[in-house]
């Protein structure tokens, strides 16, 4: 790398042009978020008087207070957090168990089952959402958090990702543990899980983000106001308050903040999970 960066004068100029272009492009990419924050801090009067002024003249925090009473924001926030956490934990455990079995244990018809599971990666959920809804409602689970949780727990991607991690661990580890009198369950929890923590973090962050942002499945499965998630709440909010720009933007800012936090903590895990997407193909 250092070698290729010893640049001549004309190359240096080109390099800085590229750098400036990239900075401009980054700002343009982030503009919708900057505009969202700026608008959330303005009064509606201010907005309609000077629509072309993108920056708030003073900090107006009233929108952030009103958002909690305009819709049951706290309830939606809590529901989303609850569902995302439960699904993430259960999905990670279930994926790890099955991935460990694929990597290290004997399973009848191993290859057939694995191909079936991986075929799920190719098949978009949208193509089975109608009959799946029918199955879930026949089980009496329509309009319940349980039904919504159950449909999210299987993940072909998660099993694939974790299998890669378990396969990279040497078999001697299992054999030594068996000699020491551990059973498979103990080996899994005490030895395998701690060693696979990097993979687990990647999968957990990926799943949590996905669940936090999920919209179509909650739209289909959750009907009662008390069960709804933040994304459904925001959509309903948009329909009711079309003209309350400030209020609307305060709502989207609050709904985005948890993702910003997750992103800043787990940026490298995101990159890793994307790189794995490349690997799997």
């Amino acid at each position: 790398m250092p070698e290729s960066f010893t640049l001549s004068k004309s190359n240096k100029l080109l390099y800085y042009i590229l750098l400036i272009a990239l900075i401009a492009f980054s700002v343009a990419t982030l503009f919708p978020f900057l505009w969202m924050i700026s608008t959330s801090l303005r009064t509606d009067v201010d907005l309609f008087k000077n629509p072309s002024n993108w920056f708030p003249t003073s900090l107006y925090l009233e929108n952030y207070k009103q958002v909690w009473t305009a819709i049951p924001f706290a309830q939606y926030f809590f529901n989303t957090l609850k569902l995302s956490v439960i699904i993430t934990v259960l999905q990670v455990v279930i994926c790890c168990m099955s991935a460990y079995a694929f990597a290290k244990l004997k399973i009848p018809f191993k290859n057939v089952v694995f191909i079936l599971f991986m075929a799920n990666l190719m098949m978009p959920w949208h193509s089975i959402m109608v009959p799946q809804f029918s199955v879930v409602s026949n089980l009496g689970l329509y309009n319940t958090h349980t039904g919504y949780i159950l449909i999210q727990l299987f993940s072909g991607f998660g099993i694939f990702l974790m299998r890669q991690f378990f396969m990279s661990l040497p078999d001697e580890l299992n054999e030594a543990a068996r000699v020491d009198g551990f059973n498979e369950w103990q080996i899994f929890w005490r030895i395998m899980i701690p060693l696979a923590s990097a993979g687990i973090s990647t999968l957990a962050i990926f799943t949590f983000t996905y669940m936090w942002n999920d919209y179509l499945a909650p739209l289909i499965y959750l009907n009662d106001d008390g069960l709804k998630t933040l994304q459904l709440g925001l959509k309903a909010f948009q329909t009711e308050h079309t003209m309350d720009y400030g209020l609307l933007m305060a709502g989207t800012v609050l709904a985005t903040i948890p993702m910003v936090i997750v992103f800043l903590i787990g940026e490298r895990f995101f990159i890793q999970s994307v790189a794995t997407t490349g690997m799997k193909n």
Partner: protein
Amino acid sequence: MSSKRLLNLRSYIPGTLFILPAFALFAVFIFIPLVYGIYMSFTDYGGFNVKANFIGLDNYISLFKDDYFLVSLKNNLIYTVLFVPLTMLLALLAAVALNGVRHLRKFFRMSFYFPYITSMVSIAIVWGLLFNPLSGPVNQILKAVGIANPPEWLMSSKWALLAIVIVAVWKSFGYYMIILLAGIQGIPEHLYESAKLDGANKFQQFIYITLPSLSPTLFMVLILTIINSFQVFDLVSVMTDGGPGRSTNVLVFRIYQEAFINYQMGYAAAMSTVLFIIIMVISLIQFRLEKKWVTY
């Protein structure tokens, strides 16, 4: 049964128990719906406890005479044709540019990737306001650069689909950029060194080394973006509700309306089967061509 055989069977017990939860979930919530959906598509099932009658191929026959369905299919194809090349081009440019700088790399990578992890609903609401023909920044900028009559975007049946494509490209190019960046960084350095010895400039290096070496990754991104383009729903639902008129009604949105608003579950299942077949065909083409595309 001999004791050896029994011991052999026994060795399968832990593995079977470990895989059981995932297998049960897969069977009940994916495999059964898949099979049941195909059956459903041959019935007039109306949802919940309504009794279904077997009607043979009727749903599939009406599907191809159904204007509304054909419009949604056409819109989806237009969306695919715009979304796929634009996303790939932007992702490739960003990846190559990012690979060529040493300053602020992390900042660039994060700002391009960030839209991908934010929720479709939030950004659809924000972009809905950005695209407002009168007070939105998009048209303010267009007017400022001298376009007197900028489009009405989401309010115009001519421009609404393009507006949705723009948002979708903005949201997802960063994701594909990361995949391509990983691909570029995997190209062996000696290829560039020998090209430099032969007097190739940066552009020639890009055309003769980067692009061919990256072709398997590019092909994969092509398939991923195509498959992705047939799943668009959230942006349509939040930004236009399929309108104005039917101008942004796409495949999954049509399935959603038919199944969960009109309760024509059997008919919607037939549409889902069409979606399933489209995706399967694309995947099969991928399997077929994948090997031929490795060019180095």
